[in-house]
């Protein structure tokens, strides 16, 4: 069995002292930022990118991955205890989780979230291990046409999951693609939109945009809101263990959430956020009249929490097999691989099997660590929630500043980030989402290169994208997605799914 052999190789890599340590560090950090509202995995991973220069590729990626799925665990704690989503993917967890906490059942809610996430994490790991090799093989058949069409599909997927207006999300993607045109043209060597500023000829760093929009933009937005009274259920977390009734209700929800999350994570544009929203809607639908959703139904915690963790993990699949990031976090992972001199794409599995399988195995190890970190040691994280924001936001600002500066040891990047902080706040005020922008920005250069290469090969014939069957299939899938979302009945449902509660 190849699968077993591969996983054995992976576990061999993951169980070295160094890699265990970095996985642990990533998980702790992930939980930490997950618990803290207003600091997400995108800003954190961006902040840490400079520090991985000193590390080997494998521990570096293991650590960064740990931050992403660790944040899914930590985010639920905040959602359940103080009704503030620590992470955007725990927005729906807050609805029923907080109600459970108010009824003195914070313990079972936390347990359902933690154990559900762990189960989903184990399944997610197996899904990656099983599906990555065949997908990798498929990826070797890809020409520039297929890559271009796949990225179109990915961007369309990102639009569908964006929570606000469809057309604004598309505009943000195009805006991201356009901003990515500030660079030196690869083919002709012409500097574009540089205004004779030498730093701009290399393009704007995506860390600069990520930090400005997701780090600083959020801080400004948070500070702009009146300080609200937070009711923290810290003393009431006693019995962690769910009752038999809880178990009976929760486990089917965990199974459904895991299945849904695993599928939605692989979709381009998918990941933790989309999965948790979809799972909540599904649970509500299945429970029907018997549900107590909005009043503390354990299924409303178990389903979405399993789904977001499964989605977080399977979203590694397109990144690892095709080198195409399905969301902003994966884009940063691609950036991290590039920093370590690894060209992301289908060849990673054969050229760096240690890294590939080690990373996958480390996810299982990390999930095991996270269950321990988040259930028996929950008290530590609860204490953190009592730290006032006025201590936190200067610290976040500082780490973001240091992160941006050390990336290239360049103050120009710092000034640019200041500009993007203001732009990020503008986006927030105009309800334009940052995630599609960042995704477009990252895919921009790849898309242009593949488009131009494809056109060069076909001598300017655009029909080349439809003649090749794989490429045509991907484009049709993208078109179908748009059509489906545009259908009046679906459109209405989609709006409800995001607006409700």
């Amino acid at each position, binding site marked *: 069995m190849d699968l077993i052999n591969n996983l054995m190789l992976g576990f061999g890599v993951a169980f070295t002292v160094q890699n265990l340590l970095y996985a642990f560090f990533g998980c702790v950090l992930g939980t930490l930022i997950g618990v803290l509202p207003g600091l997400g995995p995108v800003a954190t991973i961006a902040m840490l990118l400079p520090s991985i220069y000193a590390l080997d590729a494998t521990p570096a990626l293991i650590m960064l991955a740990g931050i992403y799925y660790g944040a899914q665990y930590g985010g639920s704690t905040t959602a359940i205890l103080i009704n503030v989503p620590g992470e955007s993917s725990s927005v729906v967890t807050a609805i029923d989780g907080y109600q459970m906490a108010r009824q003195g059942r914070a313990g079972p809610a936390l347990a359902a979230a933690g154990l559900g996430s762990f189960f989903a994490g184990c399944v997610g790991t197996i899904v990656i291990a099983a599906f990555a090799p065949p997908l990798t093989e498929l990826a070797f058949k890809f020409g520039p046409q297929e890559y271009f069409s796949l990225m179109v599909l990915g961007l369309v997927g990102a639009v569908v999951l964006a929570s606000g207006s469809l057309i604004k999300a598309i505009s943000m993607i195009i805006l991201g693609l*356009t901003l990515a045109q500030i660079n030196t043209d690869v083919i002709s060597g012409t500097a*574009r939109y540089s205004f004779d500023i030498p730093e701009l000829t290399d393009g704007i760093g995506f860390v600069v945009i990520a930090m400005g929009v997701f780090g600083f933009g959020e801080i400004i937005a948070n500070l702009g809101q009146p300080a609200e009274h937070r009711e923290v259920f810290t003393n009431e977390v006693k019995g962690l263990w769910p009752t038999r009734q809880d178990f009976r209700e929760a486990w089917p929800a965990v199974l459904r959430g895991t299945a849904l999350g695993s599928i939605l994570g692989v979709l381009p544009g998918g990941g933790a956020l989309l999965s948790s929203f979809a799972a909540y809607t599904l649970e509500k639908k299945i429970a029907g009249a018997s549900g107590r959703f909005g009043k503390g139904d354990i299924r409303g915690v178990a389903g979405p929490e399993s789904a977001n963790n499964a989605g977080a993990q399977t979203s590694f699949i397109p990144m690892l097999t095709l080198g195409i990031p399905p969301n902003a976090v994966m884009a940063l992972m691609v950036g991290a691989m590039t920093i370590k001199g690894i060209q992301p794409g289908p060849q990673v599995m054969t050229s760096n099997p240690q890294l590939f399988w080690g990373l996958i195995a480390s996810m299982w190890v990390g999930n095991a660590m996270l269950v321990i970190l988040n259930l028996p040691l929950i008290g530590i994280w609860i204490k953190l929630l009592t730290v006032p924001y006025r201590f936190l936001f*200067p610290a976040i600002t500082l780490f973001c500043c240091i992160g941006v500066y050390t990336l290239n040891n360049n103050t120009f990047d710092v000034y640019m980030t200041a500009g993007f902080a203001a732009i990020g706040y503008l986006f927030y005020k*105009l309800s334009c989402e940052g995630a599609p922008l960042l995704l477009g920005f990252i895919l921009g250069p790849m898309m242009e290169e593949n488009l131009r290469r494809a056109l060069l090969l076909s001598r*300017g014939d655009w029909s080349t994208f439809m003649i090749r069957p794989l490429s045509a299939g991907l484009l049709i899938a993208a078109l179908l997605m748009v059509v489906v979302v545009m259908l009046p009945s679906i459109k209405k449902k989609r709006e409800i799914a995001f607006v409700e509660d």
Partner: protein
Amino acid sequence: MKIKSQRDFWSGVMFMLVGIGFAVGATNYSMGASARPGPGYFPLLLSIILAILGGIVLFKSLTIETEGGDPIGHIAWRPLIVIVVAITVFGIMLPRLGMIITIPVLIFITSLAGDEFKWKGVLINAIVLTVFSWLIFVVGLSLTIPVWPPFMTN
């Protein structure tokens, strides 16, 4: 004509302006033909799409009724300006004065963005974060960050 959604109206304006700006810029670069696309080809394509999308958003904001006009709401000028200034000051000071001086200044300025400013808390925060950053970034990760002002180390 009345604006029916303020947020969408200004989003539309923003997309259109950026689109038009980039389109004008793209005319400086060679277009090529679709068989041999030049450096201006892709940017022009994108910026035209962006401008059109901006136009649609703008049009919708003027025609489709929204609840309460979807106002932008008050702008948090204080945190906005303070944070932008703090980052800029950090960029100016760090290479010239080193992190031991820059970090407390950054913490001090940033803290002004909040509702409450307590000297004691800010001072403690500044000291803790300076020591912590030095330990993590300089000692631990050995990143090249100037620690002391250059004139002191020479």
